[in-house]
């Protein structure tokens, strides 16, 4: 069986740990190179040793490696455009961490570069690769709960310094590098789910986003109200609001109200609970990363359509940026796509 040769560019985003592990362990994927750009280059180097992948100090060297066919880019958000455009120019297929870029102009450049080079570009929005959400989507599309009317959803994570031990996450707190705080970090997942579940785009957004909990220089929690074109109303809360003792680390949930039924997706990830000094949820399956990598690999090897395109990610970013603007000005914002 033909394997797709991957390079991982940067360990700035902690997802690199999970993606690298899945790519290295995949039946149809091989982790051949890792570059140590940005934060956590020491972790990147150690990981390269662990997986027997070639280590490069910077991504330009990795991109010159003819052995690399596809890259997963986990560098700080403000460098997404620069790195993704270069990867496209070098003919590498691209799996790019979210958000796609800091602004819509940069997002366009990334999309254009991939198109011009004829490489695949995909963004990893995890929840739609989880079983409960797939099931919900299937039921909605089959009309089992009637027309969808209202969605309340939470994409909540814990305070960033305790995301993962031993990683430098400072750049998440620097708006020039991350584009925003907790809302920018976690809301794109919720927005992607909403776009996917409704098969629609919002026409209007209002939000209240702020640095409310920890006193960080960036926002740590936000809630957005989204009115979709075909009538669905959605309320999305996203951020880093979960305290250390909260049993869920990351918490992704959805209440889906249709005219004839109500779906309660309590958690996108199946778990059990361990009780000691505190209660802790252990996710016994995280099929999302494997699903993303498999799906991307299928796309490249089978030359199929990308399930989550650069355009999808750009729409997503447009919603997020409008939410920030709505919050800043305390007005509702009309969206055009």
């Amino acid at each position: 069986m033909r394997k797709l040769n991957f390079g991982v560019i940067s360990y700035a985003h902690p997802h690199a740990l999970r993606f690298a592990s899945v790519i290295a362990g995949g039946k149809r994927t091989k982790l051949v190179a890792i570059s140590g750009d940005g934060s956590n280059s020491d972790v990147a180097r150690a990981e390269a040793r662990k997986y027997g992948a070639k280590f490069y100090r910077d991504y330009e060297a990795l991109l010159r490696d003819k052995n690399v066919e596809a890259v997963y880019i986990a560098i700080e958000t403000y460098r997404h455009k620069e790195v993704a455009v270069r990867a496209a120019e070098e003919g590498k297929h691209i799996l790019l961490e979210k958000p796609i870029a800091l602004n819509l102009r940069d997002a366009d450049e990334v999309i254009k570069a991939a198109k011009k080079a004829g490489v695949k570009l995909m963004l990893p929005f995890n929840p739609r690769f989880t079983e409960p959400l797939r099931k919900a989507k299937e039921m909605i599309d089959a009309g089992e709960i009637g027309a969808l009317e209202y969605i309340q959803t939470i994409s909540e994570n814990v305070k960033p310094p305790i995301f993962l031990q031993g990683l430098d996450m400072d750049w998440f707190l620097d708006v020039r590098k991350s584009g925003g705080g907790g809302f920018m970090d976690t809301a794109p997942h919720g927005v992607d789910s909403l776009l996917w579940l409704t098969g629609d785009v919002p026409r209007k957004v209002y939000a209240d986003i702020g640095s409310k909990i920890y006193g960080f220089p960036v926002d740590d929690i936000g809630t957005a109200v989204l009115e979709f074109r075909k009538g669905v109303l959605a309320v999305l809360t996203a951020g880093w609001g979960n305290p250390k003792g909260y049993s869920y680390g990351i918490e992704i949930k959805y209440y889906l109200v249709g005219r004839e039924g109500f779906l309660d997706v309590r958690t996108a990830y199946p778990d059990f609970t361990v009780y000691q000094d505190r209660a802790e949820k252990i996710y016994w399956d995280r099929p999302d990363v494997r699903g993303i990598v498999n799906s991307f690999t299928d796309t490249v090897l089978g030359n199929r359509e990308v399930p989550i395109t650069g355009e999808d990610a750009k729409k997503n970013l447009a919603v997020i940026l409008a939410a920030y603007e709505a919050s800043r000005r305390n007005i509702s914002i009309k969206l055009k796509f």
Partner: protein
Amino acid sequence: MELKVGVIGCGNIFNLAHKKALRGIEGIKVVACMDIDAARAKEGAKELGAKAFTGLDEFLDLDLDVVEILTPTYTHAELAIAALKAGKHVVVEKPIALTVEEGERMIKTAEKKDLHLFVGHVRRFDKRWIQMKEVIKKRNILPMHIRKAEVQNLPFPKGYWYWDEKRSGGVAVDLGVHVTDFLRWFFESEPVSVYAVGKAIKEEARANGTFDHFMMMIKFEGEKTGIAEVSWAYPYPSRYGVFYHHVDIIGKNGRIRYTPLDTPVVGVAKANFEMPRFSPLLSTFPDAFERELRHFFNCIRGREEPMVTAEDALIALKIAEKAKESARKGEVVEV
């Protein structure tokens, strides 16, 4: 001194909650029950050992200390003002009135007559929320974000007054004031602005040109975010409970959550999964009404200081009213 109490309105909330609560309270005597429906007045009076009335003038001529008003919302102001002018203290069900303007007139009248006016914001007397508030204080949670959903399966046909916004204020007011008051009570700060969206999902709502699903995002002083979701439109059968609360509080020092699954019911699995009712009104424990009324009567007797005032009720209504304005305009409205 025994307080002589007269009740106006012997319908839903009287039968589901107040009747039993009034029976359990010492130091008061219900002497009169009035309802425009003679049969209902008679039935209520019989159960409380009181006299039945159908006319307001005759009722207000009685020697009463307190009048309790349990009628549809649109009649609150007229009845409360008449009772106050007749020299009676007033306890009125929530919402205080149909409009803020009416509520203001009620408060002014009470002030002028130097009489008490209390509004039945029963959530403030519910053990769950009282305990939650205490934990917030004791553990210094410092809430910054509170979402509260109240979902009610309204068992009334579309011709019933609840569905008529001109009589009930619609779900935004009828359930809305519970949540707006809750948020203000928990945040201990004042509302700044509101953005709201309403939907008409069920036939009953569409036929009446009103909303049955309403969400408000309320900014409170100190950058606090209140999210109120009130609905009569969830499509689940009533065997799953006719009412549910969902509370999610995120603070600087912790998070508190209360879900429908935490509601103290015994789930029964037979052919279907059922939630037996632990009270005739699933929204509230029966003892909350008793605690509320006992407190109001004690305030009237000068034994306690009010825990919730008519002004609180007025602000709760004002937020809901501004939210309706926001939903109509599609814009943020200052409170």
